[in-house]
């Protein structure tokens, strides 16, 4: 039994999943998530960090309403308007960059879309088709599309994966600036702790399957003022928590 509802008052994200099972081809169920709880206050950015294959993307799919086969409740921010950047940009290949944004955000004003394209450095690519873009540019288009709908909740699935170091740094800084300026409630899924520290106000560390939150770390803000030492300390703290989680079942630390 599941329930996805929208918060009436404060725009926060509240996830409480008792269980999420997958059924293999042979019919035997495999538990992906168990007793997973996380709360993200309005306007904050959260990062879900965990080992590969632990169920991070599964969690994001449940929050996005793409999979309703779970036991638990998910309370979305008020209005529940979602913007999402998938791992693969998932643009319509037969439509230009600007049309991809217009189609996903039919109520957006033309000058808002133009300003967004400009802000993300996409203005000169507006009439290009997705196949003409590099992965980095396509991710930026996907980000512009997600922002164009003026989301109450922004979901980012491994937004920097498969990019080279320089491109990843550029995009990370761009995402950090955009979510800081707009104060959109944002949930980022990543396997990279450094990326989580750079982007999130709160980090949720997941155990291996079945995934649950084993530790929640609050990142001091503003992040730009974060000292290297502090960042390293946070990273060590998170690595320790993940190592403990791998070793065996633990209660959540905060």
């Amino acid at each position: 039994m599941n329930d996805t509802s929208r918060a009436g008052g404060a725009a926060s994200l509240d996830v409480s999943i008792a269980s999420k099972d997958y059924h293999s081809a042979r019919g035997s169920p495999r538990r992906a998530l168990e007793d997973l709880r996380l709360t993200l206050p309005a306007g904050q950015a959260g990062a879900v960090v965990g080992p590969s294959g632990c169920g991070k993307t599964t969690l994001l799919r449940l929050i996005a309403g793409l999979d309703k086969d779970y036991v638990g409740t998910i309370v979305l921010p008020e209005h529940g308007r979602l913007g999402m950047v998938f791992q693969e940009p998932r643009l319509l290949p037969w439509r230009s960059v600007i049309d991809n944004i217009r189609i996903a955000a039919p109520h957006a004003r033309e000058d808002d879309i133009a300003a967004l394209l400009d802000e993300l450095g996409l203005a000169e690519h507006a009439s290009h088709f997705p196949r003409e873009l590099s992965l980095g540019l396509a991710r930026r288009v996907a980000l512009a599309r997600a922002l164009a709908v003026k989301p109450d909740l922004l979901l980012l699935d491994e937004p920097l994966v498969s990019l080279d170091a320089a491109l990843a740094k550029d995009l990370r800084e761009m995402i950090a600036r955009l979510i800081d300026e707009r104060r959109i409630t944002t949930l980022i899924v990543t396997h990279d702790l450094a990326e989580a520290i750079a982007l999130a106000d709160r980090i949720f560390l997941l155990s291996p399957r079945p995934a649950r939150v084993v530790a929640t770390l609050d990142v001091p803000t503003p992040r730009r003022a974060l000292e290297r030492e502090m960042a390293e300390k946070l990273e060590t703290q998170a690595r320790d928590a993940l190592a403990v989680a791998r070793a065996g079942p633990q209660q959540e630390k905060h």
Partner: protein
Amino acid sequence: MIRLVSLTALLLLWQFGAWLSDPRRLPGPAAVFEKVYEEALSGALFSNLAITLARVIAAFALAMSFGAAIGYVMGRNKLADRLLDPWLVTLLNLPALVVIVLAYVWAGLTEVAAIGAVALNKLPNAIVVVREGARALDPHLEDMAHVFRFSPTARFKHLVLPQLAPYLAAATRSGLSLVWKIVLVVELLGRSNGVGFEINMAFQLFDMKLLLAYALPFVALMLGVETFLVQPLERHVSRWRRGVSRRLDRV
């Protein structure tokens, strides 16, 4: 240019064949074109071509619209697929002639029976092609449309139709050539006008000039439809691929 050379070679081969054989069995191009001119002057050629073309269009439109709808449902819904698949296999393996004869026996020698029989022969082909297209729809794009709350109209227009376009184009191309061939058989067996009827008359009279005078203009007409309608349509729906390759060439 190559097409023109190829066509000229075909005409020369025909003329050469006519010289070698009895002109009653294989008249030369000049004799046939003269007959075409005669039939055109009398108006019979144009009226028969128009009647046959109207039947082709009606049967094709019927088969494509029902075939696309049924194929889409079968491609998207497993229960519908399992339920309708035996019917589809039966239709696919039913000889065209059997369908035509049954239609004439059950519904009489009428226009409805003629067009219905042709449409029924093309229907399974359209279903199979569109079903494959519907099965191949990208689930990742569907997830994206779900997250961004595409309306049903936007989903159909921007997601489903562009992905089905190559399959619809393939069904159109193979369908047109199949339909016009079956229309001629239907006219030959049970209609009193149209190109198929005239070909039957020519056969009864052993008039090869008349037979070719009707067959060739109709082939030319269908070639025209293919060249000036189907191919431009196909280019239009896949223009985004061409746009990409052109721009990449320039880089």
